[in-house]
């Protein structure tokens, strides 16, 4: 195990390093000049040169990359070209919106989709099973922002029970208002995610239900649900955990879209405005951060799957025996 862990951590670090190179390079080769964008039209070339020298963009690329990575290791992600604030501070100020939004959406969608998916599988020919499948199909087909717009229309404009968008100026100092402003965005992301996850949970459960060992359990006197709980949870968890990992990343990406629909000043809004303003330090920190999150999640998914399935721990020779 420890040797596996060492190799896996090594791979993770290497992937992160590679990701940083790719993120840095891609952003440098995209069209658009940071200095030009921030100064606007009608500036002299001397002013541009001066600004480029200030920002450090006149340095060779490898020097810029080296400075960036060295900064990251010392805990600094650079300074925003636009606001001249430290990037870390800028991102940290947006986390109290994006983090609760995506985590709540993730938790809600797990709580909704796991039971629904299991019921839909066990009662696959019943009314509930067919209804769950049909509704989830609809949920997958409909774009996230459209769900948001419909929710705003129903709950904010017609019923008037929740705000249509925005976040209280005093933030989490007014918890009730902060929560109220996050309800519809969370629901929007959760609906989109649950629709996808319900289908995975349903098919994982169906897969388990068709297994011989469930038949064995039934022949020994276990009830349908009892047999499923005894054998389904672990066996079904292996594929579902992989999906959860992907969906955790999806919840962050969903937050990016939904923040713009609901005018929430979170990471998504920051990302969109930074891209528009060619604010490279902010964009590359955000993109690298998201990439790192996906890589770390995958790493954790791998560990979780090994924890669940002893065949994965036994090595590849036995791993295929099933």
């Amino acid at each position: 195990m420890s040797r596996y862990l060492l190799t896996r951590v090594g791979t993770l670090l290497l992937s992160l390093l590679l990701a940083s190179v790719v993120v840095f390079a891609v952003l440098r080769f995209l069209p658009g000049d940071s200095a030009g964008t921030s100064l606007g039209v009608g500036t002299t070339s001397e002013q541009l040169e001066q600004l480029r020298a200030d920002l450090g963009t006149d340095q060779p690329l490898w020097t810029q990359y080296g400075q960036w990575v060295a900064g990251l290791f010392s805990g600094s992600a650079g300074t925003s070209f636009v606001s001249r604030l430290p990037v870390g501070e800028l991102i940290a100020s947006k986390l109290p919106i994006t983090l609760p939004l995506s985590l709540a959406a993730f938790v809600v969608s797990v709580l909704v989709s796991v039971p629904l998916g299991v019921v839909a599988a066990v009662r696959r020919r019943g009314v509930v099973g067919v209804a769950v499948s049909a509704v989830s199909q609809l949920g997958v087909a409909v774009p996230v922002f459209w769900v948001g717009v419909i929710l705003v229309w129903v709950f904010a404009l017609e019923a008037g029970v929740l705000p249509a968008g925005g976040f209280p100026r005093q933030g989490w100092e007014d918890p009730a208002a902060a929560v109220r402003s996050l309800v519809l965005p969370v629901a929007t992301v959760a609906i989109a995610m649950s629709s996808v996850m319900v289908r995975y949970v349903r098919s994982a459960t169906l897969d388990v239900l068709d297994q011989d060992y469930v038949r064995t359990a039934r022949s020994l006197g276990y009830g349908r649900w009892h047999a499923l709980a005894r054998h389904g949870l672990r066996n079904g968890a292996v594929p579902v955990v992989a999906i959860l990992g992907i969906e955790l990343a999806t919840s962050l990406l969903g937050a990016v879209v939904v923040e713009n629909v609901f005018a929430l000043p979170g990471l998504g809004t920051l990302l969109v405005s930074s891209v528009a303003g060619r604010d490279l330090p902010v964009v590359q920190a955000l993109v690298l951060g998201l990439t790192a999150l996906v890589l770390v999640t995958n790493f954790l998914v791998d560990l979780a799957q090994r924890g669940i399935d002893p065949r994965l721990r036994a090595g590849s020779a036995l791993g295929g025996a099933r």
Partner: protein
Amino acid sequence: MTPSTSLTPSTAVPTPSTAGLEVRDLTVATSSGRVLLDRVSWHVAPGERLGVIGESGSGKSLTAAAILGLLPDGMTATGQVLLDGTDLLPLGEKALRRVRGARVAMVFQEPLTALDPLMTVGRQISGPLRLHRKVSRARAAEIAADLCRLVRLDDTERILGSYPWQLSGGQRQRACLAMALACEPDVLIADEPTTALDVTVQAEILDLLDDLIERTGTALVFVSHDLPVVARVTRDLVVMRHGKVVETTTVARALDAPEDPYTRSLLAAARAVTHLPTLEDR
């Protein structure tokens, strides 16, 4: 042997009491009305053995599923399945659960898939004990170790702590037998229990089965397509084809003078296979 649970008499249909397991005019049909089992009848007395033989698709396994009330969705069974005189067919799911594993247990063809790959063999064998007998985890583990010795699984400690995929095919089927016999059932239904095993292991399992039935007093219903295999463990024989019983006979009579043409053809097929010329014959 004392059954750990008894059936509620209120739900039972009064019938002339017969000890053992009796199937009377058992008919299984799909919701569209297709008849898959047609008035199947046979009887196995306590401690006795019965071979149910027929080609694949003859309804052998379906009979077993109908007895335990585990037919696939959309199939219905009529007739009677009498366990010590009590009809199991009208019983509800809850009452049936007290029969399955405790009074009628089953062993399946493929021992690898019949066991949960993510659960240790020990936990799987203790499962029915914890379910039906409500014994403690520690007590169940003790009984599981005894059961391992009963089915001649040596190196008990290691086997109980292993996952099914860490065992050989023969060991897995022994574990399945231990699991099925855990609650000392009155009847054991073995559905092609040796078909997935290689020949030497097959012989070991058949010997074990023979010995277990002798020692535990459990009645055995041995389902197979293979007459020579059935002949090793049973005397009485039911021959099935296309969902019907075509002949009720004994192994000796079937081998000597089979009445039904289908039984004759099964025998001929078996002889053709078992008497293939070897290098020494030339």
